[in-house]
């Protein structure tokens, strides 16, 4: 006891304290004895009577216990569980699990329950000496006497430090200030303000920028970075011949207005939005997910300002007179995983979705790892667990719905054919007498829903409605007369498919329902339908939100209301803020993070690494910016441009910094091995999707239609077995097979192999930065994947058809198509030698010629020579340079 009161965790009382430390020790040491004499009887039972006892003085008797045994975890430094016991107001308002001191009711006070060990497995303090029985008794008595905690000077002092607003010392939490442009020596190099900041740093390090890259490199770089496709030879030729001083800027304008721009930058956004075409977990299909992707592409092509882009995705449904497109945008939140595995607790997975929504907002807009505060206060950043659940609360009152979201041209034919569809549907259903079983089925399901003592089979069938049929339980509960036609159709469709939950397989087939299910699908395919989209609507009776103690939803703590972290700027409306207010708060010009985090990710796309290397973590544990003033300049520029994405992209690519050569420099090896000073550009391996796109573009196979549904390229046999429930996806036919990588079906548990081996994210959670790995599986993929081999064949045909000159001319053309440059003499010689060698091998293996290049595709050319071009083409498409942005 003596030791604990003078231990390191107890603070020496100030001069105002009436008891000296020494005296305090003696007093505490003598307490057990004192009390054991006076209250021996009561103490053993732990219930001293408050009436008969002398009054407990807080300062002399209670505070020493609290400071000796509690303040280490619940004091000014740490407030574990949100509890602070060194200050009156805080202590009496309790912690995350609620009040801990109930004046007058010691038995009900959690403080007593915890220090006395009454709650099994929970004895406080967690480490260090426990409270002695006498100390517990003293606390009990103090509480029973009313927990009187006088406002002394000591408490006042503690209060003043507590109440002071948390100082925003971390750089990213202070608002960006527009910096002055620095003075630089090499002014001739500067093309725009970006360069002055970069150059200032280079000059202070005593080095110089790299020369501008070759024009052929620049056009390929611009094409890949802005639209994600390599430049066609005609564009290359035109650019090289364009000697106007603003040829480069004209090219930028041209590319920014290309409809492929939206595709390139949509993919980047979809990483953040954890977009996929399946549910995750046991991974059923999401046939409407693409509609959100379609919106992203259109929004980026239309250069929707980033604040609007944000608001519509965060809360498009809450905008006054929300348009269909604005509601489609809110599908952003629907990209969370959905658990449909039967037997799961639906609430558990609803909570997981909301956690993911809160974490995603943190990562994408704030660049903060807010999710770390899900189970306890953030260990490094100024976000408490309570604040985390206040952010969570914004999303707790939503319902998931699908809406009709027709694309232009869909509505007319749909309306026209709708009566005929209903007629045919009725006709079909009438042929199946088993449909008469539906009312009885409905009744038994409802019975199972309301009582617990029925057959397990029906209970499970009712629960399955919840897992498998969104909104199904609500429809079932509606009186049939109140159901819309669509709801009626949905319910009977579900009945037809799900009746086998309650009868055995033989009976189900005998009733013909399996066949009817097929017929319904077939018939529906004959009629025009409206595209649908996934979105959110606010719940009519939103549940109250509680903090989850230790992050466990089954362990609710105090109630919390929607709100934002105190360390950041305040919300406009404090009363009952909605998602819409949260969205407006995110893109408020007072927000120090959103603009910085967004321009940093742009920088990452153009230079490989952001000015802050940890794009998803601007917190204390994240990297500090390499060029703080440049980051702030870009952030303020972004906001004052009206959040104009294209304008920012233009600014960056028109800078001299961006235009530098990427070649490694010996003189920089020691100074700046990671190229953070930006004395050169960085060579970047293309992303998974851009590798596919480049291969398809170079081989002229690319089907460049923009937007629309997902596609599934041919898959190797047996692959589908690796994931659960791959059924239901049909392989794309015709030209759809050759669409860009961002349209490839994103099946969470069975990702498309080419995308997976080249580091595409798995869409489990928001991805702010992709890895770039180099593996043997990538080599096998590029060498042997039939998709890529077909591209090599197509490229060979392209070279044969478009360049009728000699072998060397064709080689040069191939280099232009694939690398946007001329080969040097070593390269030409080596490829010519390979071409000869390949032709020789094929002549010796004549049977393989037709396999390498189907003969019907060849016109006039000698078959072995033609087929040798497939080899050359495959080599070009496998070159490290081909999959690299120089």
């Amino acid at each position, binding site marked *: 006891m003596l030791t604990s009161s003078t231990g390191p965790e107890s603070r020496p009382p100030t001069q105002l304290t009436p008891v000296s430390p020494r005296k305090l020790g003696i007093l505490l040491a003598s307490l057990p004895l004192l009390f054991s004499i006076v209250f021996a009887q009561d103490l053993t039972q732990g219930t001293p009577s408050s009436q008969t006892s002398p009054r407990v003085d807080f300062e002399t008797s209670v505070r020493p216990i609290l400071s000796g045994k509690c303040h280490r975890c619940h004091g000014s430094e740490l407030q574990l569980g949100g509890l602070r016991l060194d200050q009156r107001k805080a202590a009496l308002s309790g912690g995350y699990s609620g009040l801990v001191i109930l004046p007058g009711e010691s038995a009900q006070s959690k403080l007593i329950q915890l220090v006395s060990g009454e709650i099994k497995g929970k004895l406080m303090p967690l480490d260090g000496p426990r409270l002695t029985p006498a100390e517990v008794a003293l606390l009990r008595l103090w509480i029973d006497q009313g927990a009187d905690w006088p406002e002394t000077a000591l408490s006042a002092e503690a209060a003043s430090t507590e109440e002071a607003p948390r100082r925003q010392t971390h750089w990213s939490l202070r608002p960006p200030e527009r910096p002055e442009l620095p003075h630089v020596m090499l002014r001739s190099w500067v093309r725009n303000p970006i360069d002055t900041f970069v150059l200032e740093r280079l000059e202070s390090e005593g080095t110089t920028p790299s020369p501008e890259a070759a024009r052929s490199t620049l056009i390929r770089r611009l094409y890949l970075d802005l639209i994600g496709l390599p430049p066609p030879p005609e564009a290359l030729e035109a650019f090289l011949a364009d000697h106007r001083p603003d040829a480069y800027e004209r090219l930028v304008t041209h590319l920014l207005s290309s409809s492929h721009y939206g595709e390139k930058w949509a993919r980047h956004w979809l990483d953040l939005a954890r977009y996929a075409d399946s549910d*995750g*977990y*046991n991974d059923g299909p999401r046939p409407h997910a693409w509609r959100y992707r379609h919106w992203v592409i259109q929004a980026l092509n239309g250069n929707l300002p980033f604040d609007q882009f944000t608001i519509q995705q965060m809360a498009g449904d809450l905008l006054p007179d929300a348009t269909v497109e604005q509601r489609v945008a809110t599908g952003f939140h629907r990209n969370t995983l959905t658990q449909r*595995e*039967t*037997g799961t607790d639906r609430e558990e997975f609803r909570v997981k979705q909301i956690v993911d929504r809160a974490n995603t907002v943190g990562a994408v807009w704030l660049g903060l*790892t807010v999710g*770390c505060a899900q189970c306890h206060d953030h260990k490094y950043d100024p976000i408490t667990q309570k604040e985390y659940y206040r952010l969570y609360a914004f999303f707790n009152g939503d319902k998931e719905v699908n809406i009709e979201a027709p694309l232009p041209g869909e509505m007319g034919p749909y309306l026209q054919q709708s009566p005929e569809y209903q007629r045919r549907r009725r006709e079909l259903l009438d042929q199946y007498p088993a449909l008469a079983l539906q009312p009885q089925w409905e009744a038994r399901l409802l019975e199972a829903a309301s009582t*617990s003592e029925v057959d*397990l*089979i029906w209970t499970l069938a009712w629960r399955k409605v919840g897992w498998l049929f969104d909104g199904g339980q609500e429809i079932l509960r509606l009186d049939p007369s109140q159901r819309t036609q669509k709801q009626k159709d949905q319910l009977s469709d579900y009945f037809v498919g799900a009746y086998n939950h309650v009868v*055995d397989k*033989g009976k189900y087939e005998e009733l013909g329902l399996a066949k009817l299910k097929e017929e319904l699908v077939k018939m529906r395919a004959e009629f025009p339908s409206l595209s649908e989209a996934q979105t959110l609507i606010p719940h009519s009776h939103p549940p109250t939100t509680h903090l989850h103690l230790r992050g466990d939803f089954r362990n609710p703590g105090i109630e919390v209301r929607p709100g934002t972290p105190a360390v950041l700027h305040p919300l406009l409306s404090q009363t009952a803020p909605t998602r819409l207010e949260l969205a407006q708060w995110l893109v408020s010009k007072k927000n120090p993070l959103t603009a910085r985090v967004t321009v940093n990710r742009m920088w990452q796309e153009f230079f*490989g690494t952001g000015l802050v290397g940890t794009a998803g973590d601007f917190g204390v*544990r*994240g990297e500090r910016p390499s060029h703080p003033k440049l980051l702030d300049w870009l952030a303020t520029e972004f906001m004052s441009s009206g959040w104009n994405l294209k304008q920012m992209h233009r600014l960056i690519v028109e800078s001299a910094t961006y235009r530098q050569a990427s070649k*490694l420099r010996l003189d920089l090896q020691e100074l700046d091995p*990671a190229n953070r000073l930006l004395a050169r550009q960085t*060579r970047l391996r293309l992303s998974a999707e851009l590798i596919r796109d480049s291969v398809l573009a170079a081989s002229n196979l690319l089907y460049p239609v923009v937007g629309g549904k997902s596609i599934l390229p041919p898959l*190797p*046999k*047996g*692959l589908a*077995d690796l*994931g*659960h*429930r791959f059924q239901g996806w049909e392989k794309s036919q015709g030209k759809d097979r050759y669409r860009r990588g961002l349209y490839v079906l994103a099946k*969470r*548990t*069975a990702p498309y*192999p080419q995308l997976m*081996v080249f580091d595409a994210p*798995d869409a*489990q*959670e928001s991805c702010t930065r992709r890895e770039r*790995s*180099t*593996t*043997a*599986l990538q*080599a096998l*993929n590029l*060498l*042997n994947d039939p998709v890529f081999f077909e591209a090599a064949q197509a490229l060979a045909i392209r070279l044969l058809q478009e360049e009728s000159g000699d072998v060397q001319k064709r080689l040069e053309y191939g280099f232009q198509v694939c690398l946007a440059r001329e080969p040097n003499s070593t390269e030409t010689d080596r490829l010519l*030698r*390979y071409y000869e060698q*390949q032709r020789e*091998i094929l002549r010796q*293996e004549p049977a*393989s*010629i*037709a*396999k*390498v290049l189907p003969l019907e595709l060849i016109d006039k050319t000698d078959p072995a020579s033609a087929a040798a071009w497939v080899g050359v083409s495959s*080599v070009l498409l*496998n*070159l*490290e*340079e081909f999959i*690299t942005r120089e």
Partner: protein
Amino acid sequence: MNLQEFKQIQTRRHFLERCAGGLGMAALWNLLAQEGLAGRLQTELAQVNPLHPRAPHFPATAKNVIFLFMAGAPSQVDLFDPKPELKKWEGLPLPPSMTKDLKLAFIKPTAEIWASQREFRRYGECGMEFSDLLPHTAKCADDICMIRSMYTDQFNHHPGQLMFSCGAPLAGRPAMGSWITYGLGSESQNLPGFVVLSSGDPTHSGSKAWSNGFLPSSYQGVPFRSGGDPVLYLSNPEGISENSQRARLDVLRDLNQERFADAGDIEIASRIASYELAFRMQSAAPELLDLSQEPQEIQNLYGVNNQPDSYATARKTNSNQFAINCLLARRMVERGVRFVQVTHSSWDDHTELNKRLKSNCEMTDQPTAALLKDLKQRGLLEDTLVIWGGEFGRTPMVERSKVGAGDTRGRDHHPFAFTLWMAGGGIRGGQIVGQTDELGLNIQKDKIHVHDLHATILHCLGLDHEQLTYRYQGRDFRLTDVAGKVVHQLLV
């Protein structure tokens, strides 16, 4: 090598992997100037190669792992943990005191008790009990350490399987095999360090059970498939002979080297090396898969040519695939593959338990025992850790969720107490660890959480589960999250 040195190397590797250029480039640049490309480049590339073998934190008792993952959750009541008491209570619900907080996936806590219909006998010198469905595995009793006190916090398949294979119920975390190859690299220069073999039905967790998560994709599990190319895109396109492929790779190497000389980016050298490894894999993998190299008696030991049992055939399952996979697992370990994940699915016997359990055991019992015997006779069991188990167990109560004729009874998911066994690689065989209550509902002694299992597996490999970390989104992640204790009781 001490921990500090290990960390330095990790950092250096990390650096080289991520940065085009990097410190290694400076060194390389000088070397190139002095000696040209040959020789030293290989050394430098070995450092860049994320799978280059690395020393453990402390001396290991196991070098390799064969993880026999019985996805779907086999019934411990019917295989490993006999509960004769259940017969007394057959047909009765559990007392309300035991079901107060019981939460189950499908059945109600009041479902009636259903005693196992299996016969149990004692085997080996240790007298370990096994059910009559596992006559072969039973004969390895003295090599097996049976844990009857496993538990997990997940009672659904997808999160449960992820918890079991990746240490967290969420997808997107690295699998055990990824962590281990990240920690130790791989001895094999021609094969992936982490290989996945599957038989039976598709699993709930799919590729997430062998995902590299946030680790670099070099540590991804590589599935070897039963049909088509064993590794995706392993064989040359049609019409491309080996000669032709070699010529293609030679010209690629020369052109990439030409580029390397000009641009000087180590990433190009790394790409060249990846193509060479791919080429070696193209010949090593088919050699590995060629089971005709194995003598007949070995093939028979595993039962690779056994006739499919009729129930499995009806379910369109390749009933000898697990046997083939076990034999392949041994061949992989021999060739230096670090971690082989052999999944057999599905043991999810909600219905028709007796019929389905028999079928699964017929497919897996003999090959499992053969693997242990074969590893042992070759001296490989000493440093190969073998783990057999599913994501949770099954209830001692009955589930009646299927309409139909015959015995359709099954058991529901049971995360509170289940059985798993381990052998080899520093595990003390011939012992039973843990004990459940007389109904098999709860653990009475030596509770072992999945995190503890993972900590122990890493320990056998010489890895400290608290030190094997990876920084991602501002946090140092571990296979064992913030939990896990090495269970020394299991070890020799």
